[in-house]
């Protein structure tokens, strides 16, 4: 059994089947950590790591795992990788560990990881599953960074903590509060959907012309 091509996997994860924009999962953390770009980036990297490796492991074990206990096995694998990330950060990057605080543990509950394990890794070979995890994680990270960029820029006048807007800028406090995350996420989804609809129409048009 051969898996999908890497190009297709990445196209699905980043755009056509983007976990946040199209599947609308992983929203809780997308709303929570996006008030600073650095938080979003670290959260994203953590998620890429955990999703890729847990999909990989789930896929290796997929032919031996009894079907009715597969979810238990998936959660166990995901939890193990998250704890590994946590220990690693504490030991070698204490500053990062402090900045992320409780969010590292919360990676376990991110729907994307289990979603990919169930939807993809359970049915596909290890290498494509690994890539699929990376792609989904990247898709999630990019959306988070876009939202965080808007929120941090308007809310603090900074990008990655570096002041870009001058003294004249009055920070929009609403941007760093939860409501702004809802607005911006909704607007980003709206724009994506519009573009994707157009793409679909174009494709249909081409087929019709042929």
């Amino acid at each position, binding site marked *: 059994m051969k898996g999908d091509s890497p190009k297709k996997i990445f196209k699905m994860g980043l755009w056509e089947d983007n976990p946040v924009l199209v599947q609308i999962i992983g929203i809780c953390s997308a709303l*929570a*950590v996006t*008030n*600073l770009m650095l*938080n979003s980036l670290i959260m994203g990297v953590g998620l890429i790591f955990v999703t890729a490796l847990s999909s990989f492991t789930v896929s290796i*074990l997929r032919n*031996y*795992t*009894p*079907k*009715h*206990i597969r979810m*238990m*096995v998936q959660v*166990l*694998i995901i939890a*193990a990788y998250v*704890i*590994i990330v946590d*220990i*690693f950060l*504490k*030991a*070698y990057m*204490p500053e990062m560990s402090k*900045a*992320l*605080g*409780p*969010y590292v543990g919360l990676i376990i509950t991110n729907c994307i990881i289990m979603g990919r394990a169930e939807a993809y890794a359970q049915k596909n070979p290890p290498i494509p599953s690994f890539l699929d995890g990376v792609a989904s994680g990247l898709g999630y990270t990019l959306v988070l960074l876009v939202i965080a960029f808007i929120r941090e820029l308007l809310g603090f006048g900074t990008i990655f903590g570096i002041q870009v807007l001058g003294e004249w800028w009055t*920070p929009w*406090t609403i941007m*760093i*509060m939860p409501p702004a995350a809802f607005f911006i996420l909704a607007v980003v989804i709206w724009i994506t959907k519009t573009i994707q609809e157009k793409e679909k129409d174009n494709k249909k048009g081409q087929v019709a012309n042929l």
Partner: protein
Amino acid sequence: MKKSFSFPIIFMVVITAFFTFILAFLNYSTADKIAFNQELELNKKLLYIFDIESLSEEPEDIHQAFMDNIGSISFEGEDLYVYYGDNEQILGYAVPINGSGLWGSIEGYVGVSADYSKILGLEFISHSETPGLGGRISEDWYKEQFRGIDLTKTTDGNYIIYKPLAGGNVDAIAGATLTSKSVSKLLNEDLEEFMKKGVNK
């Protein structure tokens, strides 16, 4: 795959044991490193409270600066960190503070000068406030405001008052009113308690 009763159980036990073993091994092999990081972190924070510069950011220099300037004395059955100047003279105390924040407990130290007249500095050891909102209490601009606050003028125990209230001395964090309030409350309470008892009063 044939349905069997015992296979899923054995499978689960084996895989759990496998991952537990990996985690236990990682935990064991990094325990020293993590403990060292935590001690270094505490050293750094206490140096920050008393505004002591270490030669560099290297762990050895930080540890050396800590050993040179800070010691501990026994106070009410617990260790109290004190700032020794030259000639073993006490310059300040690191008063432990703790209380509840918005999401969980906030712990830290506040430096009080040896004559109880002003705050030397403030640092948090742990908190679980929202990153980017309440979590900004651990940013420098917020903590720096506490340096040099006069403790002698107040009589009713309200040492920390947010601007623009009358007598205000500190800016609260925009968007994190509840966390800001928690910090001033726990600071005021713990400072008042320490000021009443005092070390040598």
